[in-house]
C-alpha cells in the first residue's frame, strides 16, 4: 500500500502526518523546534519518525510535502523572509534531498489556502484570503480561484504589512499580531504590573493569554483586544486592496482566536469598504498539513495515471 507524508515546519514546532493513498491521516508526530541544529534537524527527525510509522504499517511512502513559514525560492532552494526564526538563507532543499522520495516545498499558508479551497471553508468561494497566525504571521491570497504568488513569491506576506503604531511611526504587522508578539506584550506587562502578573502568571504564553481572555479575565482580554485592533487594520488593508469575500484564520493562534471572530468582523465593518465573512479553519490536523497531504496525493495520482498511459 502506498502513502504520503505532509509536514508543517513552524516557528516553534514541527508537526507532520502520515497519510494513506487518499491523504487520510494514519499517524501524527509533533515536536518543538527549539533544539540544537534548529529547523533542519527537526525536519529530518519528524521525517524519520513518520517514515518508521509507515514501515510499521507496511506503507510505501511515495511523496512528501513540506510547508515552511517563509518564501521558498525554487531556483536557489533556499527560504527567505522567514523573519521569526532565522530562516533567511535556510537551505531547505539540502535537507529534503536526503528524504529519498520526491519532496515538494511550499509556503505553509499557500498549502493551507489550497486545502481550504478544495476541502475547507473556501469551497465555492473563489476570492478569499487565509491568515496563518502562529509564532509568526503569514497568509495566502486567492483571486478568481487562483493562488496569487506575486512577482517574487511574496504576495500575501501579511506579517510584512506596515501599520500605524499607536505610539507613533510604523510597525510591522507581525510585531503586533503573532504568537510571539502576544507573548512578548504579556511578559512586558507582567514585569511592571503585579495585578497583571497575578492574573497572567509570571511567564505567560500566547495560549495562556488567549485562554484567559476567553474566560473574560481583564488583562488578558485587553491584550487580545489590542491585538484584534491591529489585526482588523490588516484585514481592512487587504479588503481595500483585493476585496475578498471570506477571511479564514488558521495556525495555532488563528484557531485559538475562534471565540473572537465576531469581535474581529465588527471591527473590520467599522473601518472598511467591504466586509468579508470571517471563519476559522476546521481542517484536521491543521490546514497546512491537510494541504501538504493533498498536494502529495495529487503528485502520486498523476504519476499513477501517467504510468497507466505508458
Amino acid at each position, binding site marked *: 500500500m502506498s502513502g504520503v507524508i505532509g509536514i508543517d515546519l513552524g516557528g516553534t514546532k514541527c508537526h507532520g502526518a502520515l497519510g494513506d493513498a487518499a491523504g487520510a491521516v494514519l499517524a501524527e508526530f509533533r515536536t518543538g523546534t527549539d533544539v540544537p541544529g534548529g529547523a533542519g534537524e527537526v525536519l529530518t527527525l519528524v521525517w524519520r519518525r513518520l517514515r518508521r510509522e509507515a514501515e510499521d504499517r507496511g506503507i510505501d511512502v511515495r511523496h512528501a510535502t513540506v510547508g515552511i513559514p517563509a518564501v521558498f525560492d525554487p531556483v536557489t532552494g533556499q527560504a527567505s523572509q522567514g523573519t521569526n526564526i532565522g530562516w533567511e538563507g535556510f537551505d531547505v532543499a539540502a535537507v529534503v534531498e536526503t528524504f529519498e522520495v520526491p519532496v515538494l516545498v511550499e509556503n505553509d499558508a499557500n498549502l493551507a489556502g489550497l486545502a481550504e479551497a478544495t476541502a475547507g471553508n473556501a469551497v465555492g468561494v473563489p476570492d478569499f484570503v487565509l491568515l496563518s497566525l502562529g509564532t509568526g504571521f503569514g497568509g495566502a491570497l486567492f483571486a478568481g480561484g487562483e493562488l*496569487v504568488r506575486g512577482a517574487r*513569491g511574496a*504576495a500575501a506576506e501579511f506579517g510584512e*504589512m506596515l501599520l500605524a503604531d499607536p505610539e507613533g511611526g*510604523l510597525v510591522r504587522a507581525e510585531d503586533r499580531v503573532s504568537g510571539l508578539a502576544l507573548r512578548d506584550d504579556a511578559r512586558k506587562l507582567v514585569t511592571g504590573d503585579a495585578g497583571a502578573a497575578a492574573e497572567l502568571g509570571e511567564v505567560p504564553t500566547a495560549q495562556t493569554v488567549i485562554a484567559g481572555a476567553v474566560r473574560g479575565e481583564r488583562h488578558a482580554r485587553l491584550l487580545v483586544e489590542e491585538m484584534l485592533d491591529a489585526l482588523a487594520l490588516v484585514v481592512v488593508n487587504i479588503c481595500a*486592496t483585493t*476585496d475578498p469575500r471570506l477571511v479564514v484564520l488558521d495556525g495555532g493562534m488563528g484557531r485559538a482566536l475562534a471565540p473572537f471572530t465576531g469581535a474581529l468582523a465588527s471591527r473590520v465593518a467599522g473601518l472598511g469598504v467591504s466586509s468579508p465573512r470571517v471563519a476559522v479553519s476546521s481542517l484536521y490536523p491543521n490546514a497546512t498539513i491537510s494541504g501538504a497531504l493533498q498536494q502529495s496525493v495529487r503528485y502520486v495520482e498523476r504519476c499513477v495515471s501517467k504510468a497507466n498511459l505508458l
Partner: protein
Amino acid sequence: MRTRSDQLGSPRLLRVMNERLLLDHLLVRGPASRADLAKITGLSKPTVSAALAGMEDSGLVHLAGEVLGRPGPVTSLYDVTAGAAHIGAVDIGRDWIRVAVADLRGRFVGRKDGRNAAKNSEDLVSRVRELAQAAAGQAGLPWTSVITAVVGSPGVYDKDADRMIFAPNLPGWEGSGLGDRLRTALGVDVTIENDINLAALGEHAYGAGHGIANFALVSIGTGVGMGIVVNGELYVGARGAAGEVSFLPAPEPVPADDDTLRHGLTESLAAAPGVVRAARAAGLHLDTAKEVFTAAAEGDPAALEVVHAEGRRIGGLIVAVASVLDPELVVLTGGVGHNLALLGDAITSRFAELGPLRPRVVASTLGDSGVLLGAVARALSQAWDHIFDLRQSGVQPRQSGVQYGMSR
C-alpha cells in the same frame, strides 16, 4: 484516425474556430498570405482558403495586396478589415468626459473630449450622447456603426441594482437605472466598468504594463484608486471593490468629518484636494494641485515640501499594497500621480525607510487616454466574441456598417 472533435464539434463550430484563429494572427502580425497562415497555424491550405473566403464574403478580411517579383505565382496578402465594425469608449471623470470611436484594430478613428459641467445624471448621460455622436461624426461615421461601448466611471458598478456605489464625486451618479439610461441614450450594448480598472487594462494592452503578469496601476487625481492585474488578468475582487485604496487606513491624523468618511482616509489626504489643503496650510495661496506642482517645479521651497510629503504618502500607499500583492511594477497616473519626476525621490526614500523588497515605479505614458484605451481593449474583446458568436449561430450579415449590431 478519428479524433474526439470529429464527433463533438459541428462543422460550423470548427469553421468558426479556424476563422478566429486566422483572424487573431492577422490582428497580431498584420497582412499575411494563405501559405504563411497555413504554416503558422498548422491548418491545411484548402482550410485556410475556405475560411478566408468566408470572412471575405462577410467583410471581415480583404485582399490587402499582392507580392510580386518572386518566382512562381503572385502571392495575395490578406488583412483584417478594421473598419468592418466600430466600438465606443467612454471615460467619465469629474472634470472631463472623453469619448472615442475605434476600429477593429483598436485605433481611434474619432475622439471628442468635453468639460463635465453636469449637475445630475440625466445631464451627464445626454452630454455623453452628444460627445459620442460628435466623435463618430469626426470619423465620418454614424454612431449607429458602433456595435458595443464600454463606459469607465469612478466608483463600483453594482450590476444587480444597476447603479454606481462609491462615486461621491459625480452628482446623482449613485441613483439606480444608470446602465439602462446609458443604453437608451447610446442605442448600443453598454458595459460599465470602474475607470481605474480600465486604465489598468489600458496599461496592460498598450502601456507600461504590457506583458507584465503582476502589476498595479495607482491613480491619484481628484480621487485615489488602484487597478490590479494578477496572474496576467484584471482582478476586481469578489464584489468589484478591489483597489478601492482610498479607504486604506491612513498613518497620519485626518479630520474625522463626514466628508472624510465618505471619501476614505487615504483619499482625503493624498488626492488633489488634500494636496491643496496642505499647500494652504504651508502658506501658499494656490487653488489647484496642478499649481502646487508647477510651483514646486519652479523651485518654490514651500511647494517642494508639500510635494515631498505627498511623495512619502504615495510611497507608503505602494508599500501597503505591495505587502498584499507583491507586484512587479506600479504604474502611477492621474493629475497628481503623473508628476513622478517631482515625486520620485520622496517615494524612493520612503521605500528605503520601510524595507528592501519594493516594486519598480513608473509614470503612465498613455496621458489622458489611459481609461479610453482600456475601454477599447475591453470593448474589442466583447466585439470579437460577439462577431464570432453570430457567425457560429449561422447569421450571415450583409456587407454594411451595421451588420454586426449587438442586441441589447
